[in-house]
């Protein structure tokens, strides 16, 4: 069949060109980021990654506050999103009556379709005031002696960014977790029931036996999403290029600083420093997504072998 017909040959070549075209674009993107970062890499070297200063006037640049902000806000997002998403996945797959399954998962997955700027607006007008008045102010008042919850409270903060991000990544973790739960062999569930296990014991055991790598993969996938999210984070994180230990204080993320400062970056070095932040972000998200894919693929392969 293959190669017989000249039209088929042409079609095969054409699709190959498209496929390699996509790959080529990714490589080109990476090469461009590297080329544009060269001035900043030459000037600051590896110190760029661990320097706290961000001073466009003196042309002294360090990416640490942004790396810190991206990692911490994403970590907060995972802390909130993983239990919620995994819990919902368990509910939908194991407990919800048939008629409820599809509407619930449809609505939850619809969260992924909302444009991030809408999340940002909702964050500014609803989430930030609510968090500030109902959570951060009382917490800073009573628990302010713990460095993590130290005031003063403004509203826009690392916590606000983390909470908003968590809502945005729930649909991804939820849908992957549901798929992971669905790969559990029926016989494994029945084994637990046949020994006199309760529904809860059944879920606990099959998750421990079969789902931990998959749920970890789902988590890393959510992390990949959270790391790169720009608009919504920019609108609620506070945009201060400093490092505060308290999650009630403002911060800044890698994506946010690029979005905010790119148009006003005047000097070549300033521009180059922003591009280098982009390069670091590219590498971090690339590694996170690669790890997630790797874990999930091994999982699927093992499920295929019936393990």
């Amino acid at each position: 069949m293959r190669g017989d017909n000249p039209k088929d040959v042409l079609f095969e070549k054409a699709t190959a060109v498209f496929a390699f075209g996509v790959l080529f674009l990714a490589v080109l993107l990476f090469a461009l980021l590297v080329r544009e970062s060269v001035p900043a890499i030459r000037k600051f070297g590896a110190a760029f990654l661990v320097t706290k200063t961000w001073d466009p006037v003196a042309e002294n640049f360090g990416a640490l506050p942004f790396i810190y902000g991206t990692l911490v806000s994403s970590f907060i997002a995972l802390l909130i999103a993983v239990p919620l998403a995994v819990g919902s996945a368990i509910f939908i797959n194991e407990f919800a009556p048939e008629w409820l399954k599809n509407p619930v998962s449809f609505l939850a997955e619809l969260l992924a379709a909302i444009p991030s700027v809408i999340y940002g607006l909702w964050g500014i007008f609803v989430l930030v005031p609510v968090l500030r008045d109902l959570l951060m102010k009382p917490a800073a008042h009573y628990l302010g002696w713990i460095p993590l919850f130290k005031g003063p409270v403004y509203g826009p903060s690392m916590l606000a960014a983390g909470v908003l991000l968590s809502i945005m990544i729930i649909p991804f973790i939820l849908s992957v977790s549901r798929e992971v739960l669905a790969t559990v062999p029926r016989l494994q569930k029945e084994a637990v029931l046949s020994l006199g296990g309760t529904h809860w014991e059944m879920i606990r055991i099959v998750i421990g036996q079969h789902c931990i790598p998959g749920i970890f993969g789902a988590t890393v996938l959510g992390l990949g999403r959270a790391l790169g999210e720009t608009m919504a984070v920019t609108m609620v994180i506070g945009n201060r290029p400093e490092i505060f230990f308290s999650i009630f204080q403002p911060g800044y993320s890698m994506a946010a600083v690029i979005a905010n400062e790119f148009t006003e970056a005047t000097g070549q070095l300033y521009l180059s420093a922003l591009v280098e932040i982009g390069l670091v972000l590219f590498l971090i998200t690339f590694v996170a997504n690669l790890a997630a894919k790797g874990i999930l693929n091994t999982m699927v392969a093992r499920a295929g072998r019936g393990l």
Partner: protein
Amino acid sequence: MENALQVKDLCAWFGDHQVLKNITMDIRRNSVTSVMGPSGCGKSTFIRCLNRMHDLTPGFRVAGDVLFDGRNIYSEKIDPVLLRRKVGMVFQQPNPFPRMSAFENVAVGLKFNGKKRSRAEMAETVEKSLRMAALWDELKDHLGRPGSSLSGGQQQRLCIARALAVEPEVLLMDEPCSALDPMSTAKIEELIEDLSDKYTIVVVTHNMQQAGRISDYVAFFLLGDLIEMDKAAKIFTNPADKRTEEYITGRFG
């Protein structure tokens, strides 16, 4: 009481499709009863009714009574979780928990329902169960190996040990040898005979020779009906129903 289980007019449906029709039979205590019949005759569905294994299957419905210790297991007063501790089950495919060690696989049921046992008590029960499942000598030095690393026959005996550890009265076995080689099959059959001194065993099989070798009683199912049930010798030498005779002489099925 000499009957461990009494089934009265049991009917079962998956959705609109009726798979069991008015099954009535007594299952004698401390005996091996084989449930035999061609594919699709409802024999697996039937034994899964005896420990309410269908409870989580959407669209499944039963009517009629299954009396265990004189009480209907489908009555609202019966907790299916407690019932299944008394009526254990071994499945067609060996299904040990792959990431648990052999020891943990056998001990897992002991930890259910919040029962606390000391480490020593647990080890004792695990040894006893593995001995009963004729697996102790092979495994006693490898109790830490994961369940998935054992051979198919060992996995199935591990599953039998796991079921015995929670001290059931009845053991249901759904074609326990169909995934095994002849050597492992012979071991499991021998085991079934030994266990019937202490346990009531119900085995589903589509293998007549096997039913002949291990059974005290044989029930023959066809298309959801119980055609006849009698002592094994009677069924195989002088069946009352023509259809049974046709089946055992290999004219269909």
